[in-house]
């Protein structure tokens, strides 16, 4: 489920992303947040070296909301 919440100025919409990081090669993958994601949770396989990734960050980024 893509999570979006209103931003501070109401015109901005915040989209929430999860960053998965490979502890071996450092490759980072950004995907939409899904309920149940948390920092240090096991992620998918690394696209570069196929190792197990871990969620390193969950954050929101602002986009201009279309009225």
């Amino acid at each position, binding site marked *: 489920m893509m*999570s979006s*919440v*209103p931003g*501070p100025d109401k015109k901005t919409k*915040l989209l*929430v992303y999860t*960053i998965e990081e490979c*502890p071996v090669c450092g490759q980072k993958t950004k995907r939409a*947040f899904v*309920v*149940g*994601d*948390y*920092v*240090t*949770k096991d992620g998918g396989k690394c696209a570069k070296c196929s190792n197990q990734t*871990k969620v390193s*960050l*969950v*954050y*929101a*980024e602002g986009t201009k909301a279309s009225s």
Partner: protein
Amino acid sequence: MFIPFGSALQVGIDSNSIFLIFWVGFFVVTFFYQARLQSYMALSDISRGLNKLRVMKDKSRKEAIDYLVNVGKAPSDPTQRVDQFLDYVTIMPVDLDPAGLVGKIDHVVTTNNDRVRAEVGALLGQTNAVTVSISENLLEVATSLNVIHKIVRHFYLLGKKTNSYITLLQLQMLMPLIIQEADALLNAVDSFKLGQPIGDGIGPVIVSRYMAGKEKRAVAKDTVMAVTEYKGRKLYVLKADGPMAYVGQPGVAIKKIIEEMGVKPSAIVMIDAALKLEGEKTGEIAEGVGAAIGGIGVEKFQIEEAATKAKVPLYAILVKQSILEAITVMRKEVAEAAEKATQVLNRVIEEKTKEGDEVVVAGVGNSLGVAQ
């Protein structure tokens, strides 16, 4: 005697005289009724704000009830219990004799926290720790909005009843700030419901990196610790137990590490979110000394006391953000500051301690969505 406008001109009253009468009347009215008129304007402003607060309060209550029913699988309708919960009060101890006051406050607050958890546990049809902690936080948000609404309504009605212009004016001036704070609380509901890390969780995010792959153990209520190494220093890293929405008891934990576990740290480094001033940038990092922890002051007191007794210097690393950013989903600017703050933490450890030393590192904040 009423003289119609047309007749007035006919009997020799010119338009200048009419304007003069109008202005004299205007000044007489404003001279005698200015305060009354401004009171009406203030009442109307406050009334609009109060309506907004009522809508926010009702929305947060509904969201909490919906969460308890839909996610918490409450076995029966929790509405009545929730309404009782919202009006529950915590009576702070008397401060006429301040000696030992912090211990009394700690006792009252701990009793309240235990009661909240027990009540929420009884309301839910499941024992999942994350769901219970989120329910606790949602009910706390609803309680806060309920209290804000009640206090504003009290002063609004009091000002109206006593026709107190000064009371109303003060409330009118404060309304934008109160609405801003209430809005931040309401926005926090979405992040809590989805279990997303909030801005306040930046401290736990940073220290979780030091705890990865290490054995964790409970060191205080809702607080975990791991022992790790960094450039020859032994680090005792602690944070609230995640991914639950806990803040833990870092004060109790640090006291225990120093006084009961016999650790002799050369430094205590605390990482926390800090409220930025208007004009400061979100994600800015500030360094300092002292206990970096908010709240009612009990934890801060415990940390300062333990550090002072053991003569351990306290260092603080702060990540700046607004109140809205601190209690809603973590912003990109804050998350990206984690890397910089980690470098600062490493530098502080390297500069302030030497190889073979022991260091306590505490990531202070709400651990929602941040495990270890």
